C-alpha cells in the first residue's frame, strides 16, 4: 500500500523515548532494565521503519512492542512484586528531577504489586490515556478481558491505596484545611 509518510528514526526517538521508557519502567519497576528495553525497542523499530505507514502506526507499534518486551523481561527475570516495590522506592538511580511526587511514588509502588495484566491495563489507561478498545488492540487481548483487568486493577489499587495511603490522605486533608 502506498503511503506518503516518511519515517525519521531520530525524530521518532525524540518523540517517543519518554513513552517507551516510562512504559517499560512502570511494567518492570527497574530503571536499568527499562533503559535496556527501550534500546531494544528502538533498534527493532529501526529494522521495521519501512513497514510503518504513519506516525500513529509508529506510536501504536512502539507501545505494543514496549509492552511485549517488558512482559518478556518480567517472565525472564521472574521479578516479584516486592522486589519491584523496593526498586521503585529507592528510585534506582533516578535523578531528583525524574522523581514524581510522594503520592506518585506511592501509587507506583502499589502499582508494581499488582498482577501483570492489571498493571499493563492500568499503565496504558492512565499513562497513555488509551481507551479500553485501544488497550485491547495494543495488548492483542479480548476487549472483555481488558475491561475486566481495568476494573479489577483499579479496585485492587484503590483498596491497597486505602490501606497504605492513610498518611497521605491525612496530610492532604490537613493541607486542604479540613
Amino acid at each position, binding site marked *: 500500500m502506498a503511503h506518503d509518510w516518511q519515517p525519521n528514526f531520530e525524530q521518532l526517538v525524540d518523540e517517543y523515548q519518554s513513552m517507551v521508557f516510562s512504559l517499560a519502567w512502570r511494567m518492570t519497576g527497574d530503571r536499568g532494565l527499562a533503559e535496556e528495553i527501550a534500546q531494544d525497542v528502538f533498534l527493532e523499530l529501526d529494522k521495521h521503519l519501512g513497514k510503518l505507514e504513519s506516525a500513529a502506526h509508529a506510536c501504536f507499534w512502539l507501545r505494543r512492542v514496549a509492552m511485549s518486551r517488558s512482559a518478556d523481561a518480567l517472565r525472564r527475570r521472574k521479578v516479584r512484586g516486592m522486589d519491584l516495590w523496593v526498586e521503585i522506592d529507592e528510585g534506582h538511580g533516578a535523578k531528583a528531577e525524574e522523581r514524581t511526587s510522594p*503520592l506518585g511514588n506511592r501509587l507506583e509502588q502499589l502499582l508494581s504489586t499488582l498482577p501483570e495484566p492489571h498493571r499493563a491495563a492500568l499503565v496504558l489507561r492512565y*499513562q497513555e490515556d488509551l481507551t479500553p478498545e485501544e488497550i485491547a488492540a495494543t495488548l492483542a487481548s479480548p476487549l472483555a478481558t481488558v475491561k475486566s483487568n481495568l476494573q479489577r486493577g483499579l479496585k485492587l489499587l*484503590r483498596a491497597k491505596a486505602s490501606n497504605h495511603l492513610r498518611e497521605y490522605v491525612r496530610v492532604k486533608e490537613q493541607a486542604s484545611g479540613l
Partner: protein
Amino acid sequence: MDFEPMEDFERDLRQAFQRRPAPPGLKRKLMEMRQKRRAPGPNSPHRQSNFFLWQRLAASVALAAVLGGAAAWRNAEERRKGEEARRQVMTALRITGHALNQMNAQLAARDRAAQQ
C-alpha cells in the same frame, strides 16, 4: 476510613502516571548503536554471515568434487576389470580353439593312416 471518590482517584492516577523523562544518554546511545549496526565491521554479523555462507558453499563444492571423482574412478575401474575379464575369456577361447584344431588334425592323420 474510605479513600477519596473513584473519579478523584483516577485523576490522581493520571497525575502520578505522567510519562517520565527518558535517561539523558538514551538517544545518543541509540544513534551510536544504530550507526555501528549500519557500518559493518570485520566482525559484524553481516560479514560473519557472508563468511559462513561462502565457507558452506566452498565445502559443498569440495564435497561434490570428491563424490563425483569417486564415482568416475569407480566407473573406470569397473570398465577396466570388465575389459580384463573379456580379454582373459578370449585368450582361453583361443587356446581351446587351438587345442581342438590340433586334436582334429591328429584324428584326421590317424584316419588317413588307417585307410592306407
